């Protein structure tokens, strides 16, 4: 049997420190006052202003119109992240179902067309997308934030691969049991894909949560600001002799990290299962 040696632990400890230190530093620094941070830089000690800073960040109305609070931004980010992830899952599952289970002309071609869009990230089509949303009058709306990003080649590809690994006899048994295309999809395929769904949900939620460029273009109304924009706008107020609210920026950054972390921790066993094994 292999016995773990001190050097193994050393490697793990170094790795863990490397990953965790920035987070700890950000959290600890956020508990100091802005002036303190400006004078002393980052710190690893407890600053004692935890409650004030976080309360202020979450509840104080700020921004240009004075209507936007941290809590509001957290909510916007959640709406974007969850809507984005769920929408992508629904859309890519249906696309993959069509590609895998139905014979229609140019099915393979359709798949490859979807697949090649992987090569075209949002940034490439950002101008036309903006134009379309603007013409449809969807600027400054959740629909405009979420819908243009929903089509997902990655998701479609993952689900296609998963559906292909589902034994064909399952479909045949269901056909003999009198399940039509809708029933088969809802009664059989969705339940057996649940680990896959969980995995895609995590990836897409984090991806949506971290969106920065698209929300910045789509929203000028502060009521639709997400956390990512909020962090930036705090640091932008370096006017005259005023010190930027470093503590608030750090606090927002820490807050911004929590939901993705929570989701990964909660779903991690499913996540690993979904990406590594096909549950038959």
């Amino acid at each position, binding site marked *: 049997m292999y016995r773990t040696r001190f050097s193994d632990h050393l490697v793990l400890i170094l790795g863990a420190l490397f990953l965790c230190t920035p987070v700890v530093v950000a959290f600890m620094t956020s508990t100091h006052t802005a002036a303190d941070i400006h004078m002393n830089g980052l710190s690893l000690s407890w600053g004692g202003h935890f409650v004030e800073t976080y309360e202020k960040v979450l509840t104080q109305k700020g921004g240009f119109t004075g209507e936007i609070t941290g809590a509001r931004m957290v909510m916007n980010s959640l709406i974007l992240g969850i809507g984005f992830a769920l929408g992508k899952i629904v859309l890519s599952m249906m696309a993959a179902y069509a590609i895998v289970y139905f014979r229609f002309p140019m099915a393979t071609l359709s798949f490859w067309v979807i697949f090649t869009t992987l090569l075209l990230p949002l940034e490439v089509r950002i101008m036309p997308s903006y134009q379309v949303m603007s013409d449809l009058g969807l600027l400054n709306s959740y629909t405009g934030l979420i819908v243009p990003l929903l089509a997902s080649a990655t998701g479609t590809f993952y689900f296609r691969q998963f559906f292909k690994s589902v*034994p064909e*006899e*399952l479909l*045949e*048994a*269901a*056909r*003999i*049991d*009198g*399940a039509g295309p809708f*029933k088969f999809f809802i*009664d*059989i395929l969705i*339940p*057996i894909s*649940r680990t896959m769904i969980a995995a895609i949900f995590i990836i897409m939620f984090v991806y949506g949560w971290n969106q920065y460029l698209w929300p910045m273009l789509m929203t000028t109304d502060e009521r639709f600001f997400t956390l990512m924009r909020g962090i930036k706008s705090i640091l932008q107020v370096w006017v005259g002799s005023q010190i930027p609210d470093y503590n608030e920026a750090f606090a927002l950054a820490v807050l911004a990290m929590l939901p993705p972390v929570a989701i990964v921790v909660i779903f991690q066993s499913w996540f690993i299962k979904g990406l590594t094994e096909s*549950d*038959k």
Partner: protein
Amino acid sequence: MAAIDISSVGKIYNGGVRAVSDINLDIRDGEFIVLVGPSGCGKSTLLRMVAGLEAISEGKVKIGDRVVNEVEPADRDIAMVFQNYALYPHMSVRQNLEYGLKNRKTPKAEIDERVAEAARMLEIAQYLDRKPRALSGGQRQRVAMGRAIVRKPAVFLFDEPLSNLDAKLRVSMRGEIKRLQRRLGTTSIYVTHDQLEAMTLADRLVVLNGGKIEQVGAPLDVYHTPASTFVASFIGSPAMNLVKGEIHGDRLAIGPGLLSLAGFAPASGAVTVGLRAEDMRLVPAGDNSLPFKVEYAEELGSQRLVHGLIGDQPVTVAVSSEAELASELHLSIDPSRLHFFDAENGKRLAGKAPAATAAPVAGKIQPVA
């Protein structure tokens, strides 16, 4: 319950590959038909055409009085048991059994009753709330059969249902399938590549080769009067020995050996001769015997299979495990137990021995003259 009428059925896949051609088969109500053949012989394709999982390219399939060529599988009144069970992994055993009935809008009370009955019949009542993955292979197979039974279909279709089980379980499940089918009296079509399974289960065997029917008949008829060299070598274990021989008048020459045919000669000239391993006996050297050079022996416990050569042609002989082996033995065979096939096309040549005299059924009391 229904009879099945398969007439001139063929299957051509996209791209022109012909998997099955011109199958004609009348299956009586309540009959247990086994389709048997090597892999790629079209047996599964034929079954899947009856099930409606493959489109029928040619001919007609009738279940009962209805032509089902264009009928959806769910509406054909059939149930199918798959090789890999195809249980829905996320549903409990009970939900698996109920699913087909629920889709047919069967009343809840009746569903419960049928599930309970099937569970009792198959002794899976204690597993009803488990997921399939928590069951062993044999138990999963029972559940798969239960799913077929609860539907009370007109026809059961089995697609190599026992292939994934270990040898011992296979034998006991085989018996169970047979008992169950007798009890329910449901017309059944069973596909297998295992000739032993085919022999033990079938009311009638259908031997398929290259997408065509080679022979249809009761297991013993097929065993004792195989219609071709293909059937002869496929049915029976160990496989029938097929050797080249030549008939001169009333004598048969196989390699260096000569046998008197006692009037059983069906033809003259070159033939293929079929010798069942268990029909041959060891005799002292002499006339009317075949010299047999022993190569090696396999011990089966109850008997011993001796592999060797007659002339230069390989032959396997079953002898009792007490028999003494030398490097050279002599074999003899009752001429009525010889099978003759055309040397060219492998078709059976009718000898003078009719099928009925081939093997008196053990235990049958012969009237005293």
